[in-house]
């Protein structure tokens, strides 16, 4: 630290030149928007126009007025379920990628298969689920064809289930990559040592690999939870009226009701609660990180 302070002026100036673009970026796109958000949340509206003010009434309304709080909780629940789904589905893939893929070529191929869906637009992929799950969708057509059902199922689409399913599908790659990065760090010799001591593959998984991969699991869960909770495309496309999420509420407040202070207040609450949750998860992530 002292070294940085005693850095010659010329070096400091050079460092400053390098730092200006990122600092500028950070200020324009992060600090100022957050300040604006906070500023708007303190104001009020009169005949659909913003009136600056200094009141916490909107922030309190988030917790007091329905449906804000219940939608917020529902979003968190959908986010948590999506994170759970992505982790449960992603873990075996990451495991396979880390331990059961021998050649670099096969590894690259699986890696590619995980990444490739991200080359397609999110909107298209979410829409695809609509065509799969709908009353005239692929799944119903298949089930009808196989005579499993007589009437098309309507419970597949436009509910929480379809939202979670879509979100899990969209965000599982994040969980896979995060878990894989952690599994890759486990030396092969540790797994060999466990088996050499007489452990069955399941015992090795339970006692060694799972505990060692916990930080990756948590990191992946944090990312998928944050992304899923704040999502607005999946609920808009496959959610229906009962699976409205908090982002949809914010969009409506902004674009339909022109209640910017209320929208900003919800934003502040989401950011606050999200930051707190992520901090707690990150604490556990660091605590569970074994030193190899």
């Amino acid at each position, binding site marked *: 630290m002292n070294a940085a302070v005693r850095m010659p002026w010329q070096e400091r100036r050079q460092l400053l030149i390098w730092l200006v673009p990122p600092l500028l970026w950070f200020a324009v796109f992060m600090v100022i928007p957050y300040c604006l958000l906070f500023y708007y949340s303190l104001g009020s509206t009169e005949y659909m126009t913003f009136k600056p003010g200094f009141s916490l009434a909107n922030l309190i309304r988030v917790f007091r007025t329905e449906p804000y709080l219940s939608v917020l909780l529902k979003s968190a629940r959908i986010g948590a379920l999506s994170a759970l789904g992505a982790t449960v589905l992603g873990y075996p893939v990451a495991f396979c990628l880390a331990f059961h893929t021998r050649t670099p070529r096969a590894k690259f191929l699986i890696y590619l298969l995980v990444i490739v869906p991200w080359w397609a637009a999110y909107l298209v992929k979410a829409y695809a689920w609509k065509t799969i799950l709908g009353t005239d969708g692929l799944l119903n057509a298949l089930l009808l064809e196989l005579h499993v059902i007589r009437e098309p199922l309507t419970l597949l689409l436009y509910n929480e289930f379809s939202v979670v399913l879509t979100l899990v599908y969209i965000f599982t790659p994040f969980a896979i990559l995060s878990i894989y990065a952690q599994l890759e760090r486990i030396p092969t010799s540790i797994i060999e040592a466990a088996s050499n001591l007489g452990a*069955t593959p399941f015992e090795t998984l339970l006692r060694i690999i799972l505990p060692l991969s916990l930080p990756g699991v948590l990191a992946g869960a944090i990312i998928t939870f944050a992304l899923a909770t704040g999502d607005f495309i999946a609920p808009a496309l496959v959610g229906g009226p009962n699976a409205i999420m908090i982002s949809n509420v914010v969009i409506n407040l902004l674009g339909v009701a022109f209640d910017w202070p209320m929208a900003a207040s919800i934003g502040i609450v989401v950011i606050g609660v999200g930051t707190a949750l992520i901090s707690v998860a990150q604490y556990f992530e660091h605590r569970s990180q074994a030193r190899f």
Partner: protein
Amino acid sequence: MTAIIEAQGLEKHYAGAVAVKNLSFSVTEGEFLSLLGASGSGKTTTLRMIAGLEHPTAGRILFHGRDITGVPAAQRNMRMVFQDFALFPNLSVWDNVAFGLRLRINRGRVTPEEIKARVGTYLETVQLSGHAEKLPHQLSGGQRQRVALARALVTDPPVVLFDEPLGSLDASMRKVMQIELKRLHRTLRKTFIYVTHDQEEAMGLSDRVAVLQDGELLQLAAPEEIYARPNSEAVARFIGTANILTGTLRVTNGDPTVELPGGERIRLLDSIGSGAAGRTVTVMIRGEQLKVGPAGAAVGEGLAARVAERLFLGDKVRYELELAGGGGVRLTALAAGGASRFVIGEAVALSVDPSHVRLIERPAVAAR
């Protein structure tokens, strides 16, 4: 003396490359056998095949005469000490050592009280009782090594496999651990199979040494035997300081001698068949058997040479010598006593007791 482990025609191929070639040997119960070789000699692959961590391309592995080639690693009653120790980083020292005993394979066989007692005993054996609650990363290299050792021994396996276990320790720690290993082997009376590239370590620790090169077994014998009577140039070169000389067999005054390219003659004690005279042979003289004396003082069998290089090594002096007779023959002599009596460029006379001149019978393995 029964064989506990037998390798029969073991082969391992990796994507076209051959790591181990037609390897056969047997390990006697209770012995300390070293697999010695340079990197790429196939020694670790052989050990891993015995452990079941690698499946042989061909050949069989027997345990007490029973074929275990297809038995998974977890069901072979052999414990391995890994080069990188392979301790479980999420478990304490105590839990690392107790790991094997707590597995399903030992359920019903070992009671919790017994686990406690045995882990305690073995931690004491490796002098780590005070570190039981620590995590592996909080230990020094030597301590980690001891944990790995305790973890391997606590389940009381008949065979313990070592994959260069001292490779990552510093020189002084290695010496301590070598003595520790030798003591453990003597007291526990288990079969130890030990992979190393360090010839001194192999010689010092083992009852028998198997020298491997390019996946092939060159010689398997007691250290003394391998040192004194290497069966090939490769073995001779790999172990100790060896002078390998090629010359023509002659018979001088009824005694067999080897005539070097420069005309010098070295007497042999080995009897040679009649009619062998004139044949080209290879002999080996150990560095410490080559006596360096002042020029002219030696009589009869002294070889005139010149000191090309001199290295003072503390307990001995290493001379690089060039024979005066021409032919560019260079020799290495290790003079005991530590007195560096001769200087670079000085003319000296070399002598050797004929009983220490070894005819290397098998032709040397062709260099790659």
